[in-house]
């Protein structure tokens, strides 16, 4: 059998085939089908199929996260339709307003396992590569099709490797690495590709940092991205599965056995597999970066834009709203205050992150410094609510996307950075380096 990439192995598995070739179109059966606030719209498409029941209720996962709690009557009606659908179809993996962002919640709940295929009506479904799964974004009609048939066509992508060696310098994060790659190779540098991350620098990252890489590859044009699962990944998933089953009053034994089997037969790329490109990075060469308006690939070193006036600083999202992100920002905020004329919005990625941040005292520190704490969810990332900038204002954000109008206002600028830079900028009132922030 010819040597295979991760994407080839994962899509062969999902299509029930021995092996697949790059460029082949397969009918794949995903293990998990994700949707969120767009579920009501998907339901309206699905109803055209005149089915009383979806064919894969146990594979459907739904979160309410993009506009929560409902900012308007229309949003509330949308949520109500989704709850009705969940009840009528007996969907078990449903997560209410306030539980958190889909990618974070499904990770915490260990709903996706290594080697599995998850397709989601959300472009950042690439996220699940952090645990060695194949995650890809699809459209609403495609999710409706999956509810009705359980399968969807997918083209087996070419794969590229991005190799990081060494240990990141102090103050440099996985976000900076992702921004550097996108800046170097462009917003379409990974178009249609499966992006595999390799190297000692990736293995050394915390799990929360690893999550940033596949998440950001949506901004690189990638179909999916991949990081090798290891013992830490396994321990995280065991904990998540056990917690979920205990909460539901069920015995986790069978699920844990399935996880062990998924891990032991982990789909690792073959050493001789063929790649379209391989890029090497040395961690020691990286520094903090900022993506400038209005494109994620307009990346410059932090020093090049330091001093730019900001009106709002946003810490959160599926990219950088986890505990280590809040910890990094809290370390900057400690003993300082948000600058006059600046809003610092802190929106934990999930209720579990919020709870842990409370236990660590970070939330108290943010509030004491003058920050605003939001409900776990997507917040103002896509301009729905909870922090939309005024025309002419500038936001520095830990999110993944800075397109014109992204946060709801066309005449507003968005800079993207790592969480500590967001916090330092909130304190300084200007884009600032946390390493050189004055007292």
């Amino acid at each position, binding site marked *: 059998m010819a040597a295979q990439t991760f994407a080839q192995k994962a899509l062969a598995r999902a299509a029930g085939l021995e092996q697949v070739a790059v460029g082949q*179109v397969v009918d794949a059966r995903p293990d998990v089908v994700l949707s969120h*606030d*767009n579920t*009501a*719209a998907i339901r309206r*498409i699905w109803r*055209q*199929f*005149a*089915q009383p029941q979806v064919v894969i209720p146990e594979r459907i996962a739904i979160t309410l996260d*993009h*506009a929560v709690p409902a900012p*308007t009557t*229309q*949003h509330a009606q*949308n949520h109500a339709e989704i709850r009705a659908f969940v009840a009528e179809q007996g969907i078990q993996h449903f997560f209410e307003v306030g539980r958190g962002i889909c990618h974070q919640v499904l990770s915490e709940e260990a709903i996706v396992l290594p080697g599995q295929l998850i397709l*989601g*009506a*959300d*472009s950042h*479904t690439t996220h699940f590569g952090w645990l060695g799964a194949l995650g890809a*974004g*699809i*459209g*609403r*009609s*495609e999710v*409706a*099709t999956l509810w*009705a*048939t359980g399968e969807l*066509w997918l*083209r087996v992508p070419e794969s590229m490797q991005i190799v990081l060696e060494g240990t990141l310098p102090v103050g440099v994060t996985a976000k900076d690495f992702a921004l550097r790659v996108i800046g170097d190779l*462009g*917003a*379409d540098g990974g*178009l*249609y590709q499966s992006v595999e991350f390799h190297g000692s620098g990736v293995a050394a990252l915390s799990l929360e940092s690893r999550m940033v890489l596949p998440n950001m590859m949506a*901004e690189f*044009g990638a*179909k999916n991205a991949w990081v090798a699962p290891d013992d830490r990944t396994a321990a995280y998933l065991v904990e998540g599965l056990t917690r979920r089953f205990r909460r539901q009053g069920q015995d986790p034994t069978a699920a844990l056995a399935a996880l062990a089997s998924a891990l032991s037969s982990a789909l690792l790329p073959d050493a001789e597999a063929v790649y379209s490109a391989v890029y090497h990075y040395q961690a020691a060469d990286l520094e903090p970066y900022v993506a400038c308006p209005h*494109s994620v690939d307009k990346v410059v070193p932090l020093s090049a834009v330091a001093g730019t006036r900001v009106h709002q600083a946003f810490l959160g999202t599926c990219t950088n709203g986890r505990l280590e992100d809040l910890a990094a920002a809290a370390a900057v905020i400690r003993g300082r205050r948000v600058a006059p004329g600046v809003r610092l919005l802190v929106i934990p990625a999930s209720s579990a992150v919020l709870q842990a941040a409370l236990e660590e005292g970070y939330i108290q520190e943010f509030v004491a410094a003058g920050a605003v704490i939001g409900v776990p969810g997507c917040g103002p990332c*896509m*301009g*729905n609510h909870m922090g*939309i900038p005024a025309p002419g204002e500038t936001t520095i954000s830990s999110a993944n*996307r800075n*397109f*014109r*109008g*992204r946060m*709801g206002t*066309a005449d507003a600028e968005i800079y993207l950075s790592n969480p500590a830079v967001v916090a330092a900028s909130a304190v300084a009132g200007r884009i600032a380096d946390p390493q050189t922030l004055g007292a």
Partner: protein
Amino acid sequence: MLLAGRAWKYGDNVNTDILFPGKYTYTVTERSEIARHALEDLDPTFAANVQQGDVVVGGRNFGCGSSREQAVTCLLYNGVSAVVAASFSRIFYRNALNNGLLAIACPLAVAAIVAGEPIAIDTAQQTIRCAAGEYPFPPLSASVMGIVEAGGLVAYVKRKLALP
């Protein structure tokens, strides 16, 4: 099939927030209203002036960003017959084919087309014609062609499920 219309030409990375802003995705559901917001932050003249059959022309990575399907339907509801781009973002490309919007990757044609000029697309011959010349584009893969021929994914699935 022969398509003819004027070219609305834009640059690289025409993203989904510019095609259809995220703030509307859960509240704007009527076809006419979806159509009205198309490209509003990039070209406020587009929705009011685009005519049936017109073609949107873009550079590299057209449709990058969100998975929102309205980035495609907002063009369809305005009568746009095709999008010609140097390259497409993958979710936009899927959404286009799944909704019966012709999405053609043809960098040479994009370089040649002048904004506002009439262009013609021959889907049988797989060519794009503009004042500068005629440019061939590659055919769709056979398996995906079935979806397009059925009139989009929903129609394709209906047929598969033996629905009327």
